């Protein structure tokens, strides 16, 4: 009897969410794998032609996709470095007991709340008009010009804006990490006469390893999946030079109507994201130290 009642409660508590979750995430994932083996234009009346692994093989000859893979990788490397440096520097400054700390923390976090699409539009204007103005006034026209029309600089513009968006968020994580370092460890090292740099290198950084794990995971996966900022800042241009993975997949499916082929790309995208993030978490977790 007791057991029967428990089963009822179990269903009542877990079934509603799990059914929604199955409908939205799990079933589409399975259907997605199925679609990736077909050639199909997305129109229900048109036939789906089974092509086996052809879609996946075709990927290796798709120069635009390979170019986008390379650009996404480059973007991710630069973005992860830049976001984490800016976030960590701000976190160290903000936690060093300054009166301006609170104001600074609030301001640096602000862009994260605004959202990628809108941030992209804001910076489109800044690159277009403010950068050119600064270039004219200072004469540094090689540095300050509209980055968005240059095939190389447009990617750096993307890194720039992404850093602006994410740094505050990552800063909060590092702040939480710094606060979790026990005070007595720091005090003991100060009494022993350790310098600021020695404390940073030998105490703060090793004890921050869990925060590094999370921050790297978050920046790595969100940089790899970047879409909103990409869409509003560069739209993939100039000449597809900033078309990141996510946008390439979107365009393949909904832009050119290659549903099966686009879905094969999407499956590969999943495998890459999963492999990279799991490897990173595995590596950094191993370096975490227990106090």
């Amino acid at each position, binding site marked *: 009897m007791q057991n029967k009642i428990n089963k009822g409660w179990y269903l009542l508590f877990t079934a509603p969410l799990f059914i929604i979750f199955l409908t939205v995430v799990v079933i589409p994932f399975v259907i997605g794998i199925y679609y990736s083996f077909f050639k199909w234009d997305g129109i229900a009346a048109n036939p789906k032609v089974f092509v086996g692994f052809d879609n996946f093989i075709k990927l290796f000859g798709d120069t635009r996709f390979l170019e986008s893979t390379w650009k996404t990788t480059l973007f991710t490397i630069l973005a992860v470095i830049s976001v984490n440096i800016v976030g960590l520097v701000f976190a160290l400054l903000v936690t060093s007991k300054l009166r301006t700390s609170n104001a600074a923390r609030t301001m640096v976090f602000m862009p994260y709340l605004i959202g990628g699409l809108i941030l992209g539009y804001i910076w489109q204007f800044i690159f277009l008009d*403010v950068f050119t103005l600064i270039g004219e006034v200072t004469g540094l026209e090689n540095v300050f010009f509209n980055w968005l029309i240059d095939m190389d600089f447009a990617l750096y513009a993307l890194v720039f804006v992404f850093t602006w968006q994410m740094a505050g968020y990552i800063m909060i994580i590092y702040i939480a990490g710094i606060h979790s370092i026990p005070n007595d460890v720091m005090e003991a090292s100060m009494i022993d006469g350790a310098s600021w740099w020695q404390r940073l290198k030998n105490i703060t950084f090793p004890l921050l390893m869990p925060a590094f794990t999370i921050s790297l995971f978050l920046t790595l996966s969100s940089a790899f999946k970047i879409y909103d900022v990409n869409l509003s800042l560069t739209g993939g241009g100039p000449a597809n030079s900033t078309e990141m993975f996510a946008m390439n997949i979107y365009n393949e499916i909904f832009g050119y109507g290659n549903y099966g082929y686009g879905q094969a790309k999407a499956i590969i995208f999943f495998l890459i994201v999963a492999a990279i993030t799991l490897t990173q978490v595995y590596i950094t977790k191993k370096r975490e130290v227990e106090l």
Partner: protein
Amino acid sequence: MKKFYKIIKELLLLIAALFFLSPIYIIIVNSFKDRQELYENVLALPKEFSFQYYIEAMEKMNFLNALANSLYITILSVLIIVVLSSMTAWMLARTDNKLSKIIFMIFIATMLIPFQTLMMPLMQFMSTITNTLHIPMINTREGLIFMHIGFSSSISVFLYHGFVKSIPITLEEAATIDGASKFGVFWRIIFPILKPITVTVMILNVINIWNDYLLPSLTLTDKGLRTIPLSTFYFFGEFTIQWNLAMAGLMLTIIPVVIFYVLAQKHIIKGIGEGAVK
């Protein structure tokens, strides 16, 4: 000398933070200028503060309608996520059997799937449901809320699950002995204890759902259903050349976020920090 360094540090931090926010300053000052004044000097303060372009942008973006849609979708999604994911996570954490472990594993493992992998089959599946079962999933705000709940469930269940594990079970056992039902135990005893993590779950989801562009762009086709990011996107498609008008439009979209930030600042920063450490 030490004091001098401290003042320098204070100033540097403030300057860095102000520099960090300077793009917002540029948006504000230019949202009040006409086109000619804007191109004279984009950094200068406006000659007069007229809200003319705000009113114009408000009409062209159908801003109030978009704001209402965004509020409706975000608030309803987040409330349902909190209720369902806390219940699910508690039950999974407290029922120590194979099934619970499997369900929890599925929730966690799917966190690795990027949205782009799911978007096409999701839309196909949702139109199938719409056409065969006659449940309107596509092009309705309720359908979008349903999908938001599905996508938020992994992280929300994960956060609640971790928190429940840290609560001693004795309290619940005592209440059960006193004759409380599972429902009573959860809502009267557990849910209030979960408050800190509920705040985190709410904040993370509010930010994600409020700012989401891609999912609404795929599901909502009617003009009248557009959320703020969607209406911003279409607004820019049509009026990009008029940057002063565009600036006013962007400011409009930022204002609700700033109000939210001012009201809940402490909770937001604390919530994000705690959410990340879990």
